[in-house]
């Protein structure tokens, strides 16, 4: 069976995957509610509908971050070596990248959760 997990790539860009997911999630939530609160009358949507939609989107974002974390964990050699990863070898460079990406995935996961909190507790636009 062909694996659905992306194969390993050699690039610096993967470091930014999880924070980019956070940024996209942040923008979608903010813009989503900003447009909704400005245009509620003409949109025929309830606040709860927007909230549920963005809730599902939040779960998707979290899933993406978990995937990024898994790939990072793999790049880190599944945690076989401990930091500081400061040897002048390709292996240590990869492990460093993996570990830093893993840490960033953790931070992004928490930051996305923070974004979800207002959507749980605030039930209307409240201008």
């Amino acid at each position, binding site marked *: 069976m062909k694996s659905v997990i992306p194969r390993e790539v050699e690039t610096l860009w993967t470091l930014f995957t999880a924070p980019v997911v956070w940024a996209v999630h942040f923008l979608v939530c903010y813009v989503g509610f900003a447009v909704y609160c400005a245009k509620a009358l003409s949109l025929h949507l309830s606040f709860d509908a927007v909230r549920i939609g963005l809730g599902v989107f939040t779960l998707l974002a979290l899933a993406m971050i978990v995937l990024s974390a898994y790939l990072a964990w793999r790049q880190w050699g599944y945690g076989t070596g401990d930091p*500081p990863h400061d040897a002048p070898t390709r292996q240590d*460079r990869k*492990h460093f990248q993996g*570990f830093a990406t893993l840490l960033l995935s953790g*931070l*992004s996961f928490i*930051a996305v959760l*923070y*974004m979800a909190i*207002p959507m749980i507790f605030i039930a209307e636009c409240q201008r």
Partner: protein
Amino acid sequence: MSIELGNFTAEERAAQEERLRKVWGTPKGLRYWTSVNNSEIGLWYACTAFAFMLFAGGLGLLMRLQLVVPNNNFLSADFFNQAFTLHGTVMMFLFAVPIFEAIAIFLLPSMLGARELPFPRLSAFGYWSFLLGGVFVCGSIFFNAAPNAGWFMYPPLATDEKYSGIGADIWLLGLSFIEVASIAAAVEIIVGIMKCRAPGMRINLMPMFAWYLLIVAGMILFAFPPLIAGDLLFEMERMFDWPFFDVARGGDPLLWQHLFWIFGHPEVYIIFLPAIALMAMIVPTFSQRPIVGYSWIVLAAVGTGFLSFGLWVHHMFATGLPQISLAFFSAASEAVVIPTGVQIFVFVATMLAGRVIFSVPMLFGTGGLIIFVIGGLTGVMVALVPFDWQAHDTYFVVAHLHYVLIGGMLFPVVAGIYYYFPFVTGKKLSDAWGKAAFWLMFTGFNIAFFPMHLSGLRGMPRRVFTYPQDIGWDWFNLISTVGAFVFAAGVATFVIDILRPKPAPSEPNLNPWNSGTLEWTNNPAEDWGMRSVPIISSRYPLWDQPNLQADIEAGRFYLPDAKSGRRETLVTSVLDATPIQCLRVGGTSYVTIVAALALGGVFIALTFKWWIATIICSIITFAAIVTWLWRGTAQIPEAPETDVGLGLKLPIYVSGPASVGWWAMFITMVGDGTAFASLIFGYFFYWTVHDDFTAAAQGPGVVWPITALVLFVAAWGLTLLARQLNEKGPNGARIALVAAIIVTLAACGAGLAGPYLYAMDPTAHVYPATVWIVAIWAVVHGVVGAIMQLYCLARSLAGKMTGEYDQDIRNVALYWHFMAFTAVVTFAVVGLFPLVSA
């Protein structure tokens, strides 16, 4: 793989050094100012920024004198307004950001093991732009014409010409000019860090400073362009009465606040991260051990870089946005505490794990961290919406921001200056003077700014020029003023310590602090930077690689010579830093000064609406830039490869994604794209604030915008075709380029035809103004695109662009990818969105 190092006799070495000196030498006499060497540019940049800081600090003292007692009339209300506006503006735009650009330009090549950053002339251009723009903005106060609406220039106050006079124009145009310099520095720094590291310096071995600077330069690309877009709208309103922020004609001042703070909040981190980066170099040295948690610092830098873009609305909590929106920004503001906390804990852990030497740099560093943590804690308070509503626009915020900025930026920068002074001059600053300066600054700062929390909580609003007696603010203000002067005495002590003559050290020591990082191998008496470019195998090469210093000085590594008579540095791969190119960088030149002064002339002439002078200066700028590119870039080398030493031959000319020029174009266009996105954001912003955003006015129609879109896409296709054909021979490419130029110009005409033929009046309402501004943006980019096509045609005809040496056309094709995207979005939005939304 082991590489045998070079071995040269004393005579050979002397001859090499002679050649290196000749190539890298700084010109003498008046021509000194034409130097583009990173050590000169960095030094001038730092001294200029520091002078601006002292000027703005002086304005701060004047304000404190005015506020020392109630009902004081030492300064007039208007002068006070000019003083606080200029104080904030200068500190942020002319000190905090430029000083880090200065430090980066000065330090990065040595830290990375490069001879020079990839675009030295661009750095020089940035510096001269900065100097001219800065003097223009600062000088205005001597003519009673300084901006006076606060450093964030809120409309409608700042758009009111009767109130703000010419000051707002000086602010907008002077600073736009400096923003250009910042983006130039960002390009230089990113490409430098990614491509110009010493062989072997893989990304897991990069100095912490480089990691931080890489992130910060990336942030500049996304933070400054929204402000440039905002400045454009603002200046169009002031100069031509286009009503972007005028509510009566459908505009909205909140759009300015959004654009300003999308810049303004990341800005705080743009100046904080480089300061922390200095700490990340200083703390390990004085703990005499590697930093604890290198990866965690990377987490902190990258994490802060991203999260800082989700905070801007916390400056707008009191503007009546929906509370759900406020809550998002409150949440993100609390989240950014996590990475910020991580980096502070990393420093504490490093100090605990090592044996700390409490030298002057460490005093300033730790003192700064203490102040910063207090500012961070009040930051957590004002990030909470209900608290912010109470404290908004009071002295509590003034206290908070000074704790953050002075603790998070000024103290670490002073620490950095003490630390790197021997690197610059070969001499140390005095310990005794340094300690005196520290304690005066530290105590003075707290005496000055801590009471502001309390006067703020007692309701004292910021930016008042005086206050009545006996409402509970008198003592706090008196104490603050006393503290401000103690603080100023500390700064004066520091300045005197720098300026006083110092005896040369009895034994020259290149590395007086026993640091581990590469920059300390450089001899400040020589202009070449690295004597030879070493192979790196550690994060702290001076601690871990024996004989490194001696081998570098003996020219045993790469590029020990300058036989070609050109300035050369190594380009290496992004991840593993394997050598891939011998890059020839630009040398001493007048052209950068001419370009910067002429561009400055454009901005200054615009301020005073001297149209003819504007046009003349624009032509000079254009001619200077074309001369610069024509003579200085993409030059066909005398041989495809050159010997860089240690038996390695590398290409001199590469094109496409492997070249530094391609990356510079890519990075510039990312910033440009962000400015464009900000304008499109404006278009949709107006859509959200109005029920009918067109106000029933005539749009540009569908036919002309779609025609423009199709023609721009066709021009893009022709440009790509020209790039393909050029590989086979010049003729096909030339024909394709001629066709591309014609189609591009037609596309530009079609782009303007819609709003023009439908007689859209940009002064009548914000809708026609918005359509015009995005169409003009796309068309101006189209004209630039046509000039680039013409340039390639000329290069091909002159034999400077061939199938093998095709940097020009490849970079232009890259520009056109962005151009096509801009055109498609612009004309699809202005042509089709009114139909969809109706």
